[in-house]
């Protein structure tokens, strides 16, 4: 068996051979159960200990940014669904905000509320899926099904809202496609009530589980400095103690009207990333309850004549907080119907770049844990 290679594979800083014969390379992915899609990790291992990780991405690079250049801005909204499909309302919103900013489109009050409600529901939905996958990566399969069961309840709501279960395509510049269906708000409140008890149940099943704690506490530590240097955002950055939430710091829509906390971690280990996300679900429930209470009547979409052209040589930039972090849309215009260039800033891109800092020095099983707590969506990375 030729376990030891002599030449250095691409991206590695050191060879596993040449005297260090105990080290070897292991290829995880692109088809691997714990890489959440088609991420490929080359790992240099010393026994079970991870020495160095070189991620390879691009296996689901779908050239969305190139396609964007030949479609109108409105036609592009459905492509943002397919970036971060687990928080597609938020990515839709990102592009819509950029268009609204560039083309100077206003949004009615009710539409703003609808946006908040839908986005926060989706945040809970996305975190539920993450919670299930996290537990599954750690070997607890049942939690995965519980998470999905709860998620389906929210998916039902979305299906009623816009007809789709996953790729919603619901927001438009100036508002939303349609108004909320009947009895939507009471059902959301019911789900909020249900989620409160469910989250406690989850705590009992997973958060308080000794094995989970053993496997996450003190594992995969990402220091504040490294997190900043890598450009980490969202729960990953907040777990490392960086107080940065786009909803709080650069509020878009009407997020500044709601009272919610930004959970912060202390050490930046896997357990912190876990608890930050669980706490975020609770905060989302808080926002939902406030938004449902204050939801005004009115238009769900602005009545002004649609003009979605961004003036020549203008650019517009919007940031939204998806379930994974700062998702930014940068639109450059040459005055035409189609954008000259669109760049999506994917939060996961930075997180996966930081994985070598997080997981090297720990065991192979910890690499899986770290990956699970990053909650990567690979098409969002590759775009």
């Amino acid at each position: 068996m030729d376990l030891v290679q002599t030449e250095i594979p691409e991206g590695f800083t050191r060879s596993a051979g040449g005297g260090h014969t105990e080290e070897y390379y292991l290829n995880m992915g692109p088809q691997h159960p714990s890489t959440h899609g088609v991420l490929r990790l080359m790992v240099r291992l010393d026994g079970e200990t991870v020495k160095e990780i070189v991620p390879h991405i691009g296996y689901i690079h779908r050239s969305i940014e190139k396609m964007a250049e030949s479609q109108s801005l409105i036609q592009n909204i459905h492509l943002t669904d397919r970036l971060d499909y687990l928080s597609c309302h938020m990515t839709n919103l990102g592009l819509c905000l950029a268009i609204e900013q560039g083309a100077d489109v206003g949004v009615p009050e009710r539409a703003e509320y609808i946006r908040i409600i839908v986005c926060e529901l989706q945040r809970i939905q996305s975190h539920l899926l993450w919670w299930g996958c996290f537990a599954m990566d750690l070997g607890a399969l049942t939690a995965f099904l519980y998470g999905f069961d709860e998620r389906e309840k929210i998916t039902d709501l979305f299906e009623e809202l816009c007809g789709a279960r996953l790729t919603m395509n619901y927001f438009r510049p100036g508002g939303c496609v349609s108004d909320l269906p009947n009895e939507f708000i009471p059902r959301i409140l019911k789900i909020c009530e249900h989620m409160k008890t469910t989250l406690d149940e989850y705590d009992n099943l997973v958060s308080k589980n000794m094995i989970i704690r053993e496997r996450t506490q003190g594992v995969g530590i990402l220091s504040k400095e490294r997190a900043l240097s890598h450009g980490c955002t969202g729960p990953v950055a907040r777990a490392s103690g960086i107080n940065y939430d786009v909803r709080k710091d650069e509020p878009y829509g009407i997020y500044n009207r709601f009272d919610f906390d930004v959970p912060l971690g202390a050490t930046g280990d896997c357990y912190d990333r876990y608890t930050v996300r669980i706490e975020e679900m609770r905060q989302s429930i808080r926002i939902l309850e406030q938004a449902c209470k204050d939801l005004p009547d009115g238009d769900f979409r602005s009545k002004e004549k649609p003009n979605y052209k961004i003036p020549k040589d203008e650019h517009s930039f919007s940031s939204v907080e998806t379930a994974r972090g700062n998702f930014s849309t940068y639109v450059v215009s040459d005055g035409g119907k189609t954008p000259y260039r669109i760049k999506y800033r994917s939060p996961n891109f930075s997180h996966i770049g930081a994985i070598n800092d997080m997981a090297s020095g720990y065991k192979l099983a910890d690499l899986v844990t770290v990956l699970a707590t990053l909650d990567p969506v690979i098409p969002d990375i590759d775009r």
Partner: protein
Amino acid sequence: MDTSTHQPVQQSVAERLDPHTATTPLGDWVRELCDAPDGGNLLSMTINVIIIIIAICAFSSLTAMVLVWMERKLAGRFQRRLGPTRTGPFGLLQTAADGLKLFLKEGFRPNASDPFTYYLAPLLPLTGAFMVLAVIPFGPSMWIADPELGLIFISAIAGLGVLALLIGSWGSNNKYSLMGGLRAGAQAISYEVSLILCFLLIVLASGETNLLNIVEGQQGNFWNWWIIKLPGAGFIAFIFFIITSTAELNRTPFDTTEAESELTGGFHTEYSGIAFSMFFLAEYVHMFIAAAIGATLFLGGYNAPFEFLPDGWWWLMAKSYAIIFLYIWFRWTFPRLRIDQLMALEWKFLLPLSLINLVFAGILIAMGWIL
């Protein structure tokens, strides 16, 4: 040491161990047919051995089938869903379909693998399972072999299963397999120590290594079972047995050898078709064996919980399946331990505590504080 209570039991078993008196209806019938009442006839012996082999094969494959079905159904119930429903009533034929499909799959060997070890490995785990099945007393007159050193035989044979994983993982020539195999080796060696300490406790208490004698020693009501009879120590040893046997079986939370999210398939990554089904089958037969040993040692084997109820194989089955339910429950509840935590659990926690428990039990027995 007060062993007076055990004396009559030993005598009765000694009678049974006599080849001339140890009989079963079927064996007698074969002997009568061959016209050799003393059982020394070569033909009748051969026929009896063949019947035994068929019985073991049938029993183990049936057990595996039932267990796989049970696991999938129970998993479904734990996970708020139904489990297989379409194949036969309640999906009972699901395992049959799986088995048949696996047997009919194309069998091939990866080019880089080593043919001898690659093909040898799937044969071993079932062999070991059969050998252990042979010594388990299913009922008062239902056992195949009854060696004097039954428990020591079991602890010797139980190591064979992990050998298969090691051989298979090496023969596959795959890094995931190798890592799985190495984990399996480390894990089995470690947890065997605690497992044998649990056995030792029973040996100490009953003064026997013969499984039949151990079972006979627990006759009577359920408080005669070693789990209760040794106050405290028996129960702790039973819990340790459950933990270590789960680890020996490579089941969650100790399934680091397969660890699907880390090593894709662990040692069986490169196996397909029949070879994979052998591992699959052996896994479930081993599960039954572990449960049956646990029931035999701690829960009185085939003895009924109350004196007025008749003893029989059904009690062993009921007790084994209760323990198997525990295994399945563990699997669908707990996450997986990391390999180093798994080792720490054994060497820093289970082993010292087992030793202390053994000393504690020794004191109880020496002082005669047995129920």
